[in-house]
Every structure is written in structure tokens, then in C-alpha cells.
């Protein structure tokens, strides 16, 4: 044994003196301490492990990337919304349509109703049919006579123009509205 090598007894003594423990002994001692540790300490360790896991989840989620919307998404949604908006008229347009149709109904229903009533009566009753034809012929004849006089024909012509104007305007408006609606629908479908 050279001078530099320690005596085994001296080595153990030095260890004891330094309060040092051999590595395998230390591992055994720590394992023993864990087993002997009170429940609170074990719970603490579990809690620490749990906290670490939660922190890992938090870190993962907090650093998660944001997914961008596809290109042209906003324009596509807007086109759909516009299409839907054009399919249904606005409040003012709706009011116009309702008023126009009501006016047309007020004019059409009495006229059509009278024509229908007279036509039914004429089909059922032969004498009435003859009378009606005679009356219509007389009326046409009377109108023709009246129209020959300018004092009567001129005001009648004016009245006819005045009566026709609103109907023409209403028909024009309805045509323009429905035509525009159809065109808008077609263009948004293309878009």
C-alpha cells in the first residue's frame, strides 16, 4: 500500500467525519425516508406533480397558434348576405308592393266580379243573354254617337288618359322592381 492510498478503516473514518455517506447508502436512505414520510408530504409531492402537469397544459395552450381564415372568406360571406338581402324586399319596397297590389285588387276585383256574374247569368238565362247583347249593342251605339260630338268626346278622352296614367306608372314600377330583383339574384349567383 503506497502512502497515497488510504487505509480502508481510515477511509470509513473520514466519511463519518465528513458526515458523508456512500452513494448506494444514500439512495437507500432516501428511499427509506420517502416510505417513512408522513402522508402530508406525499400529498405535497403529488400536488407538485399535478401543478407541473397543469402548467404544461397551460403553456401548450397559451402558445397555440391562431388559424387564419381562408382567402376571400369575408367577400364570400358578404356576397351571400347581399344575395339574401336582395331576395327579400326592404320595408319601403314591401310597402310599395303591398299598396300597389291592393290598388290593383280594388280595381280588378269589382270589374272581374261584375263580368263573371254577368257571364254566369248570361249562360244560365237565355232571355237575359239576349237582353245583355242588346244592351251592350245599344251602349256601343250610344257611345259612338256621343263620341261624334267633340264636347263629349274630348273630356272622355282626357278622363281616360288620367285614369290610365296611375295604372301605367304602377305597372312600370312593378316591372322595374321584379326585373331588378331577378338581375340582382343572377349577378350574386355569378359572384
Amino acid at each position: 500500500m503506497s502512502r497515497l492510498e488510504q487505509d480502508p478503516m481510515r477511509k470509513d473514518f473520514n466519511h463519518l467525519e465528513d458526515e458523508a455517506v456512500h452513494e448506494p447508502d444514500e439512495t437507500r436512505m432516501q428511499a427509506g425516508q420517502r416510505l417513512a414520510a408522513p402522508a402530508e408530504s406525499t400529498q405535497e409531492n403529488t400536488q407538485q406533480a399535478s401543478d407541473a402537469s397543469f402548467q404544461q397544459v397551460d403553456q401548450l395552450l397559451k402558445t397555440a397558434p391562431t388559424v387564419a381564415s381562408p382567402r376571400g372568406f369575408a367577400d364570400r360571406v358578404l356576397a351571400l348576405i347581399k344575395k339574401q338581402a336582395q331576395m327579400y324586399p326592404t320595408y319601403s319596397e314591401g310597402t310599395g308592393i303591398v299598396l300597389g297590389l291592393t290598388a290593383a285588387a280594388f280595381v280588378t276585383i269589382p270589374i272581374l266580379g261584375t263580368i263573371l256574374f254577368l257571364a254566369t247569368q248570361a249562360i244560365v238565362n237565355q232571355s237575359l243573354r239576349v237582353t245583355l247583347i242588346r244592351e251592350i249593342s245599344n251602349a256601343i251605339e250610344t257611345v259612338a254617337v256621343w263620341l261624334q260630338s267633340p264636347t263629349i268626346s274630348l273630356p272622355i278622352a282626357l278622363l281616360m288618359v288620367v285614369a290610365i296614367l296611375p295604372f301605367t306608372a304602377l305597372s312600370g314600377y312593378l316591372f322595374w322592381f321584379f326585373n331588378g330583383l331577378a338581375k340582382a339574384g343572377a349577378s350574386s349567383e355569378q359572384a
Partner: protein
Amino acid sequence: MILPEMLVEQENALLENTLRGDVEAFGDLIRLYERPIFNLCYRMLGDGAEAEDAAQEAFIRAYSNLASYDRGRSFKTWLFSIASNHCIDRLRKRRLTLLSIDEPLPPHPALVSDQPDPEQQMLEEERSALIQKLLNQLAPDYRVAVVLRYWYDLSYQEMSEMLETTESAVKSRLFRARQALVELLEDSEAQMILQPLLAS
């Protein structure tokens, strides 16, 4: 979730104009919120095409119901509640369809990455796929809580308003969701992907 004052003013002006019938103003609102709404739908549904449909539907519903929107509430919160509830409905309808949760989702092409480095980009994509895989395994109510809390930093109060529930229910859902995520992350496969991501 506090919006800058300028943004609030801009938002209010756009809302006013939309209510007056200016559809283009609503278009600007869509542009303002398209990204967060799309991300919410994508994180909830886990599929790009379905997320686009859902986000589109959310905006259309918002436009149709704009007259009933309470101006006292935040528009963003209102919009988020429409989108999240719509996504929850979709997930509930989807329940009958059998889906394999083991198949990893392909990364979305529109994934945001500020890093031009391809390696970094790959890591980001892996992270996104892992998160999506984990989210897909959560119940819809838990999933929405996680997405709203972590991506949008919403308060418990805002979340409870949006999800029409109590604050304590939101806290409880969030806690259970995190607990479930912890358990899922303990899976060795997830850990293998996660460790390099967290280290990077």
C-alpha cells in the same frame, strides 16, 4: 377582454351603418372578426371546411339578428356566443357519426406562422395538430371553455354570458377540461411530440 377605444368607436359606427341598411359596413365588421371567429370554429370543429361553413353561418345569423342585438353588450362577445353555440350544435349533431380520434389531423394550410424557418414552421404545425387532437377528445362544453379562455382570454363572466351558464359552472368546466388534457398529455405518444415543442 378589453377592446381599444378606437376599435370600439369604429365598431359602433359600422354597426350603426349596418342597421341603416349599409351591407358594406357589415362587410367591414366581417373583415374585423373573420380571423378570431374562424379560429374559434376551427378549434371547435377540427376541420377547415366545416369551420368555414360554421363561421359563415355565424356571420349570417349575426346579420339577420342584428336588430335584436343588445347594444349594452360587447359585439365581439355576442358574435362569439353565436359562433360557439353554433359549433356546439354542430358537434352534438355530429355525435352519431363515428370518427376516428386516433387519426392525426392534417395541419391546416392557412396556419399562421411568423417564422420563415421551415423547421420552426414544422414544429408549429406539429403543435397545432397535437392541440387539435387533444381538443377533439374533449366534450363540446369543455372544448368551448378551453378555446374561449386560452385563445381569447375571455373572463369567466363573459364566458358565462356567452354560454348562458353560471361563472362557477364555467370554472368547473375549465378545471375538468384541463384535468382531462393533463391525463391525455400523460400519454407517452403525446409526450414524445410535446417535449421538443416545449423545449423549442
